[in-house]
């Protein structure tokens, strides 16, 4: 490894040390990312009557997909719906924050950036458990909701879809804010001023200039928020109940009980959706601009 580090200062003339530099990491990704994905697809086609003790036979059981999707259609759709709502909420919440950081923060910009990342430093699970307390039946939020009539007198938030979506929104908000901030920050202020000089109202200027120019950030942020939300099972487990199960919960529990073919079929389906979304994104942005 050390012989490779000293190489890269004079590029093109060398006998392609690029491959030497890339090889160790590429091998790792191949062995522990690509090969496992292939194995996941293979597992999804195993004979579903097998077990860990008896072993699984490869029977090209495409029926696994039909069966598991039919059986778990509800958590699958619910997972996508929760993730979509959480992503939308993140966009609504994240845009003003990213905008403030990019255009209003002045010399506080770096501090705000640190503050946006800071919640990450407290463990994900510990933060999510804090939400359990905030949304508890005897807690402040439920109390206010009941007083204002937003919630029925015996209405609750914990163990409902609302709590799960709230948890997802909170946990993945920074993934929305950061790419939004990066793309807003790049905008040439003179373009926005020019819109104003040409008699655009601030709102028109925003709609016609700022918003379109920040679209790369919107798209990247949407992906970065939607993808982890769609696969999440932590928020549903800690803040929801059995009626709020998402696809991640099903995959996790199927694996835990050793029903590998069904779990793999569901994982492959989820991955296929995500890859399709990423492919659309790459066609828009190209491979060099990948985050």
């Amino acid at each position, binding site marked *: *490894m050390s012989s490779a*580090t*000293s190489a*890269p*200062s004079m*590029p*093109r003339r060398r006998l*392609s040390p*690029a491959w030497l530099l*890339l090889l*160790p*990491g*590429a091998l*790792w*990704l191949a062995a*522990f*990312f*690509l090969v496992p994905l292939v194995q*996941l697809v293979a597992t999804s086609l195993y004979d579903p009557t097998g077990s*860990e003790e008896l072993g699984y036979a490869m029977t090209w059981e495409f029926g696994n997909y039909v069966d598991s999707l039919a059986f778990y259609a509800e958590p699958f759709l619910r997972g996508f719906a929760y993730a979509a709502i959480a992503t939308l909420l993140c966009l609504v919440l994240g845009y*003003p*924050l*990213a905008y*403030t950081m990019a255009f209003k923060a002045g010399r506080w910009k770096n501090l*705000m950036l*640190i503050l946006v990342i*800071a*919640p*990450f*430093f*407290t*463990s*994900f*699970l*510990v933060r*999510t458990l*804090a*939400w359990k*307390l*905030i949304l508890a039946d*005897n807690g402040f939020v439920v109390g206010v909701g009941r007083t204002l009539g937003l919630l029925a007198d015996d209405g609750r938030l914990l163990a409902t879809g609302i709590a799960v979506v709230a948890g997802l929104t*909170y946990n993945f908000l920074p993934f929305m804010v950061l790419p939004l901030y990066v793309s807003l920050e790049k905008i040439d202020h003179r373009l926005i001023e020019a819109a104003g000089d040409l008699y655009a109202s*601030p709102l028109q200027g925003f709609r016609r200039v700022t918003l379109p120019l920040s679209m790369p950030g919107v798209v990247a942020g949407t*992906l970065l928020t939607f*993808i982890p939300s769609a*696969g*999440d*099972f932590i928020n549903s*487990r*800690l803040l929801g109940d059995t009626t709020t199960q998402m696809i991640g919960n099903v995959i996790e529990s199927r*694996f835990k009980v050793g029903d*590998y073919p069904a*779990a*793999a079929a569901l*994982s492959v389906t*989820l991955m296929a959706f*995500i890859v399709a979304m990423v492919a659309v994104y790459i066609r828009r942005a190209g*491979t060099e601009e*990948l*985050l």
Partner: protein
Amino acid sequence: MVRLGRWISGHLVLTAGLAVLTYMFVPIIIVVLMSFNKPPSRALYTFGEPTLANWLKPCEPEGLCSSLITSVQIGLLATVAATALGTLMAFGLVRHRFRGRPVANVVIFLPMASPEVVLGASLLALFVAVGFGGVLGFWTILVAHIMFCLSFVVVTVRARLQGMDSRLEQAAMDLYATESQAFWKVTFPLVFPGILSAALLAFALSFDAVIITNFNSGQTTTFPMYVWGAAQRDIPMQINVVGTAMFALAVAAVLGGEMLRRRRERVQ
């Protein structure tokens, strides 16, 4: 109408932005408060009366501190390995044009774009298929963490490299520095902050990884796995002590780094 619009963009957006930032800290405040909390009974995860006991006896709940040690060990090893592999890859990608670059870019991007549940599930499927189902534990967690931290390291170091002026190296070599002198005296010091932030990111990601660890941990308990297990039974308040301490340490480190950077910039 125009004035109203201007007021909105002037103040409402600012207020909304700051409100959202405040909202991000609500759970953190709860975590800090809970670290000083004595619940009415062990089974209840609610506010009772204030106490210092959690801070004085952080290791009291069985298995908490050993899980922390496991997490730190895995975190450090994963950080070193992912940072080394990822930094090399970043150099290869930025400094060289070669066929297959788009493929390399996609392969590096995909793990970041995959839901953690798929990463964890596919690794588990592989481990089971090759007969490793029984030895899941420390090493399988480590392998998984290196894999998913790697892409983040590449992206972070690559961004730093791309932002670097390559003419500085050329100038060094014009001034008769050898290739390796130019690298170690010019390139490496300039890239180092990027490598450092990549390493910090890798450690943070590994330390906090729940989903992927859950699939590949076997009987080994990292700190997130400890909390995950405790959440199914009764949750010791001490996890909030760990959360608060980590938060304080990390913020101190980041602020310290920022101050150092400012001072250095002033000197330059």
